[in-house]
Structure formats: C-alpha cells, structure tokens
C-alpha cells in the first residue's frame, strides 16, 4: 500500500491538473531528474553514453514529435527520417553560415526550419487521410533525402557529399566535434529533452492538445465545437516537425558528427520512430520515452546476450533482432495499442489497490 492516492486530496483545479497527480509519481519524477542531472554524468563511460544514453535522449525527442502528430492528432507519417534530415542540414547550414551563433540556438532554429517544412508537407493532410496520407509523407521522405543528396548547396559542395559538424561549445565545453566529452554531449541533449518534454506535456494537456485529439477521434464533432481542422492539423505538423528537427539536428551535430543523408536519415529511421511510439504508446509522452528506451536498448541487450553470452555470430544475432522487433510490433498492434504506457498504467492501477484488490 505504499503507492496510493488516499489522503492525497485535490482542493483546486490547478492541483487536479498536475502532470503527476499522485504524490508518489511526482517524487519519482523529481528523483529521476535529479539522478539524470546530478548522478549519471559522473558515472558515464564512453561506450554506454554513445551506444545507449545519447541515442535514447535524441530518439525520445523524435518519438515525442511523431507522437504529437500520429498519437495525438491521428495523422500517420512515414516522413520522420526526412524531417530529421531537414533538422540536420539546417543545423549544418546555420553552423557554417553563422559560426558565432551559439549551438543551442542553432539547434532550436533548425527545429524552426523543420517546422516550416513540416507545415508545407502537412498541407495534403487537409484533403487526404489515413493510408493515402501515409503514402504522401513517404513521398516527402524520399524527396527530402533525394534533395539533400543532389543539391550541392546543402552540403556546401563538399567533395564527399557528406556534412561534418564543426566544433561548437556551450559554457566553454565542446558539445560537437571530435573533442566533445561524452558528459558534455549527454547534458546538452538532456537539456533539450527536459525542455521539450515539458513543452510537449503542456501543449498536449491544454487547448491545443485537446483540439488535436478531437480531430483524431471525431473530426466532424471537432468542427462543430469550433476547431478549425486546418489549424489543428497544420499546427500538429509544424510542432511535431519542430521536435523531429531538433532531434535530427542533435543526431547529426552531437551524436554522429558526420552524415551521409541516405544512410543516416533513410526510410528505416521513419519506421524506427513509428515502432517506438507503437511499442511505447500512441498519445502518451511517457510512452514516447518508453518506446525510445526500448528500441535503443533492445539491440544492445540482445547483442550482449547473444553474441557476448551465447557466442552466436553477429549476423544471426542481427536477424534475430528483427524477428523480435516484428513480433513485438504485431503483439502491441493487436493486444495493446496503447503500448508500454498502458501496461505501466495497468500495473499502477493494480498497485493502487494492492494488497486488497476489491
């Protein structure tokens, strides 16, 4: 009975509106934050940071972004990889054009550029829905990758066609380039995760979030209570793309450092993001984190177990990874469309009643 809400009465609507209405949840959130900021950076090793933590943080932002569009507003997108590329190339162009601009603002501005592009590619959603919209976003994915490959201006006409992140620092610590320490990269990404996580939570619990969900659940009813479908859908596309663009910029500038567009931002990235929100939970911020953690961690764990533990060849282990991923997707689509977040909620509901389930 340690996890409960008894005796935790809400005396105002503000209190009832909290992100974590149960005190225990709230404390756990603060503890997680404190550990993430105050403890993790001191026990980081290079491998864990680059194989797990940094990709997890970046993918969380991307998953939240896609979840806003698909989970909250109900518009399926297969263009996530393409929008990540927009964020990445925007940050590259901004870094090279304005060397003195602080990298923090470069990343935010890259999100802004991606929001604009997302808005543009969101226009078809006003006419088409579901499967056809998915195909339209798929076209965006291929078009964007093709564009960044073909037009030299985007990669500053470099001979290799690649883009490389110049060295940039925050408060004197390098966060991009070869000299950046894993701790600095981690904290830099964490700052964006915290900032954008709070923004996403606030947007989804308020007026805008309700207008997205209204469009998702019943668009004609949304219209008769005054929601303009045009504004709701386009704002979802823009804000979602902002998140994905920030994620893409971090993916390039902080995580990879050098990027070849087709390889780094291909269609498989779009699917990966979609898998994250399906497994984590559509329409849930927590689910976006859970899904990102799952997809990032699973290959690392499997590899350690199968290659390290059982001594299997790496290629078999890699195939096995796909089998497990595919099985899980089918499981969640059929059994629990609200993903890990719903399982988590279910566990909490059980705990709330434990040990007296009746």
């Amino acid at each position: 009975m340690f996890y409960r809400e008894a005796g935790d009465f809400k005396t105002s609507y503000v209190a009832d509106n909290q992100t974590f209405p149960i005190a225990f949840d709230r404390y756990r959130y603060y503890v997680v934050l404190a550990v993430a900021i105050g403890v993790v950076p001191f026990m980081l090793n290079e491998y864990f940071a680059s194989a797990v933590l940094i990709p997890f943080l970046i993918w969380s932002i991307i998953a939240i972004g896609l979840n806003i569009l698909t989970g909250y507003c109900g518009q399926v997108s297969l263009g996530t990889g393409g929008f990540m590329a927009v964020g990445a190339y925007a940050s590259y162009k901004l870094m090279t054009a304005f060397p003195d601009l602080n990298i923090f603002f470069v990343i935010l501005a890259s999100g802004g550029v991606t929001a604009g592009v997302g808005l543009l590619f969101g226009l078809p959603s006003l006419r088409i829905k579901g499967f056809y919209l998915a195909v339209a976003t798929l076209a965006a994915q291929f078009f964007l990758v093709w564009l960044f490959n073909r037009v030299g201006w985007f990669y500053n006409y470099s001979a290799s066609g690649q883009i490389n992140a110049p060295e940039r620092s925050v408060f004197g610590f390098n966060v991009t380039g070869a000299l950046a320490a894993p701790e600095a990269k981690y904290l830099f990404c964490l700052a964006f995760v915290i900032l954008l996580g709070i923004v996403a939570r606030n947007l989804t619990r308020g007026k805008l979030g309700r207008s997205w969900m209204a469009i998702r659940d019943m668009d004609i009813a949304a219209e008769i209570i005054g929601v303009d479908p045009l504004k709701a859908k386009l704002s979802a596309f823009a804000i979602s793309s902002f998140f994905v663009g920030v994620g893409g910029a971090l993916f390039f500038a902080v995580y990879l450092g050098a990027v070849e567009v087709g390889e780094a931002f291909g269609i498989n990235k779009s699917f990966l993001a979609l898998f994250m929100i399906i497994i984590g939970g559509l329409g849930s911020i927590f689910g976006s984190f859970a899904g990102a953690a799952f997809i990032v961690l699973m290959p690392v764990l499997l590899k350690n177990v199968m290659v390290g533990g059982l001594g299997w060849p790496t290629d078999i282990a890699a195939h096995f990874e796909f089998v497990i991923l595919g099985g899980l997707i089918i499981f969640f689509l059929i059994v629990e469309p609200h993903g890990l977040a719903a399982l988590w909620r279910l566990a909490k509901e059980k705990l709330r009643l434990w040990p007296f389930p009746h």
Partner: protein
Amino acid sequence: MDGAAYVTPDGRSIGDVVMEMRNITLRFGGVTAIRDISFDIREGEIRAIIGPNGAGKSSMLNVINGFYHPQEGEVWFRGAKRGPMKPHAIARQGIARTFQNIALFSGMSTLDNIMTGRFTKMKSGLLAQAIWKGRAEREEVENREIVEKVIDFLEIQAIRKTPVGRLPYGLQKRVELGRALAAEPKLLLLDEPMAGMNVEEKEDMSRFILDVNDEFGTTIALIEHDMGVVMDISDRVVVMDYGAKIGDGTPDEVRNSQAVIDAYLGVAHD
C-alpha cells in the same frame, strides 16, 4: 422580420426570430433532401422538427450548422443573412449541436470531452500554452469551473475521469449534451437526443432539455421521433416529409393537421 413577441397557447412568451430559413433547397445529385422549406426559430423556444425516416431532418440541422450548403435559399441568423461559412466558424457564432449517432471523442475522458466544448472560449497563445503559466493556466482553471457546473447540472460527477468509450449509451448521450452545453450556445441543435433510450432515460433527458431552456434561456431546435416527448416539451413543431414541409405550428395544431396525420399513417404518395 417581425419584432413582435410570440405567445404560445400555454401562455409562454417567446422572443424574436433568431434563425430563419428561407426557401431552402438541398440536393444530393438526383436526391432532393430538402425542398423549398422556410421556417424560423425564435429566441428562447424549444422548436421540434419531426417527420418520418429520411424526411430530411438531419440534413436541415446540417444546413444550419454549415456541413451542407443548400443549392437554393437563404439562412438568416440574428438579423443578418449568412454567407457560406465553415462549421467551425458557425460554432463561434454560438451554435452547438449533438449528433444522431453519438460523436464523442472516444479516446478522451468525460471531463476532456466537455472541456473541448470550451474550445472557442479559450484564447491563450502557443507560447503561453507551452510554458503553462499565466494566461494558459488561468484560462484552464476558469474554463474548468464552468465545465464542472455543466457536470453538476447533468449529474455526471462520478464519471468525470472515465474514458467515454467505457460509458453506457445513455450516459454517452448525456456527455455529448454536456459538450454542447459547455460552449454556452445561443442556439442548441439536438439530433434525436433520446433515440434508443429507455423511458427513465428519456425522462431524465427531457428534464435536462427543459432545464437548459429554462435556466440558461438557450434556444433549442430538436429532432425527435417520440411524439409524446415532442408534444410535451416543444413550443412549436415543424413537420417534414420527403424533404417538404407539411406542417408548422404548436403541438396541438400539428397533431390535428390532416397532412401530418396522413404522413404518419403512411397514406400513399402520388
């Protein structure tokens, strides 16, 4: 428009014309759903629209709230002719409705469904919403207070946080009414609010409709098949059949009209 107040036979005085349909004709390809119909709705009244299945009643509500655009005729609202408008813009003018088939937001709780009904009243910008301070939070609380009043009024406190998909049919209809009421509409359109309900639920719903009309002075136009209910709660009735208007008047007048009796008894059409 005539400004004279209208007095119903039972002595209720109802106000000026708020909505006027003039010679509305609506066609879908070869089908004429509404054929040259004119009628008005007066401030503060309960106006029923009745007629057999397929008569064009729902289509009429869809014309009023902008889902359908009639090929001919004019819609006048509060003394002004209305141009072609989108449903969300019409909602902002103070017209709310419920649907014949429940159209709730299935993924949201009762509270969120009704809060969404406050959409047009919320004005905070993107930035305020993103940081959830100042206007956004204040607005959320102010609107929540109004929504709680609606919840109390409809006696659905216990299901506040329940996802609407889990609610029984009768309660879903009530939540949908709540969502429309939350908009504090001037004109409320109800498309068969009591369809599929048992007697007890119908009584509850009738009481809510009368109370809304009485306490908030909301003008109501409702479609209903249950004649008993229509005769009991409405001030004036429009009767439609095969897209045409065949009767208009008080419940008593309509009940005694030969054309209406024929339509309901199924006299062969020529």
